[in-house]
């Protein structure tokens, strides 16, 4: 009944797409975090900046990611100005376009998460840092950003899982990552169920590992929430 040869062959072919899936996920997540922090800080910094960030978040969160990928990949090339610029070697490649669209998209969602984290930093901590004579930069680096990051981590974890799944949209602009491979095998063999099982298993493993890693990081960053270990035993 179950064609194990076909399943094994399919799994092997799908794993061939795993490097691209991993590249797209890690690069866009990391670049997205950097951009999200910058956007969240810009939103606080000035009125014009705040307006800009709000408009950015409104547009990027109100439209489908697929449309954003298409706009970058097919839309930008319409202009001779862009085709003759130094950016063209990058914007011509579906890989870079996918990275760009995914990063811009996740940064919009991320900036709201970071904003929540920044808002949760206790005023007392900031005042204490100021009293201790820290400069603005030191205060952000040592006090505000670490506290905000810890606060934002659970929500950000969900966003990263969504991003890993979203890399599948890159297959529509010809990138052969896991979903792209799956599409090719399905349209060749019409065995949708088996291919879905294999591809699903790969994505489930990825998202499972990611949520575990985030959970571990959260555990590490919140020692004060843990119950103290009673190593003293009889003494206590």
């Amino acid at each position, binding site marked *: 009944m179950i064609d194990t040869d076909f399943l094994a062959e399919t799994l092997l072919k799908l794993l061939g797409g795993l490097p691209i899936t991993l590249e797209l996920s890690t690069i866009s997540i990391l670049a997205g975090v950097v951009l999200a922090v910058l956007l969240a800080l810009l939103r606080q910094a000035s009125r014009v900046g705040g307006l800009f960030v709000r408009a950015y978040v409104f547009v990027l969160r109100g439209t489908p990611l697929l449309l954003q990928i298409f706009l970058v990949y097919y839309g930008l090339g319409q202009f001779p100005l862009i085709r003759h610029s130094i950016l063209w070697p990058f914007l011509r490649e579906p890989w870079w376009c996918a990275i760009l669209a995914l990063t811009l998209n996740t940064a919009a969602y991320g900036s709201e998460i970071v904003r929540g984290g920044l808002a949760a930093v206790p005023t007392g901590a900031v005042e204490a840092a100021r009293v201790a004579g820290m400069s603005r930069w030191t205060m952000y680096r040592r006090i505000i950003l670490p506290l905000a990051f810890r606060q934002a981590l659970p929500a950000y974890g969900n966003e990263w899982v969504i991003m890993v799944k979203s890399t599948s949209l890159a297959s*529509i602009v010809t990138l052969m990552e896991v979903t792209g491979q799956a599409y090719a095998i399905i349209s060749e063999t019409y065995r949708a169920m088996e291919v879905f099982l294999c591809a699903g298993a790969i994505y*489930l493993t990825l998202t499972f590992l990611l949520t575990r890693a985030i959970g571990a990081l959260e555990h590490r960053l919140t020692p004060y929430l843990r119950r103290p270990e009673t190593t003293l035993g009889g003494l206590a």
Partner: protein
Amino acid sequence: MASSLELFGFGPQGWGHQLLLAGLMTLAVSASAFFFGIACGTLGAWGKSSHALLPRLAADVYTTVVRGVPDLLVIYLFYFGGSTAVSAIAHAFGAEGFWGLNGFLVGMLAVGLVSGAYETEVLRGAYLAIPRGEIEAAKAAGMGRWLMLHRIIAPRLLRFALPGMGNVWQQVLKESALVSVTGLVEIMRQTQIGAGSTRQPFAFYIVGFLLYLVLTTLSGFLLHAAERHSARSERRPA
């Protein structure tokens, strides 16, 4: 400016009619998927809060798998898997050739199933938020199961679930763009067609952006109004 008015207007050269129809199609497929998702979510929430092992396990597998796998993959499963099944049935009745599953149906089932996994958690959380005392009071007043469901539980559930359901709706609206891979002519597909035949992809994708923004913003306003309306009993008089 005049040329873009002509391009996106309702004149003989304009794409206005097609884009408007595509917008309606996006709304139709999203709404069907959303309601199918509520049905899936109700089943899922019932399964998760059941005391029997099998429904609980089934609901857990459902939400874990669907939330861990890309939506596009689920759409492919329904599109190709559904077409294979339909073809097999058609052939059994003596028909020949390839029988595809309708893009609208694929979109409704696939996007609905995915949104149902999120809806499960929304509904479960809302059910848990109903004060136990109210249910006990209903029982004490001698209400039957059905009467209690539609007089006490359902109205309270809807009130607590509304914000979460609003989020799911916005998500469904955006996810419906993926259904364009089945050839269903909604906003995404229509802008692709326009972009291809006029060689003005940027303009068409920007119009697509605007159409989605109109839909998400309008639904945002409506949802906000609905939330206010459902919470009116909890507002204090000024």
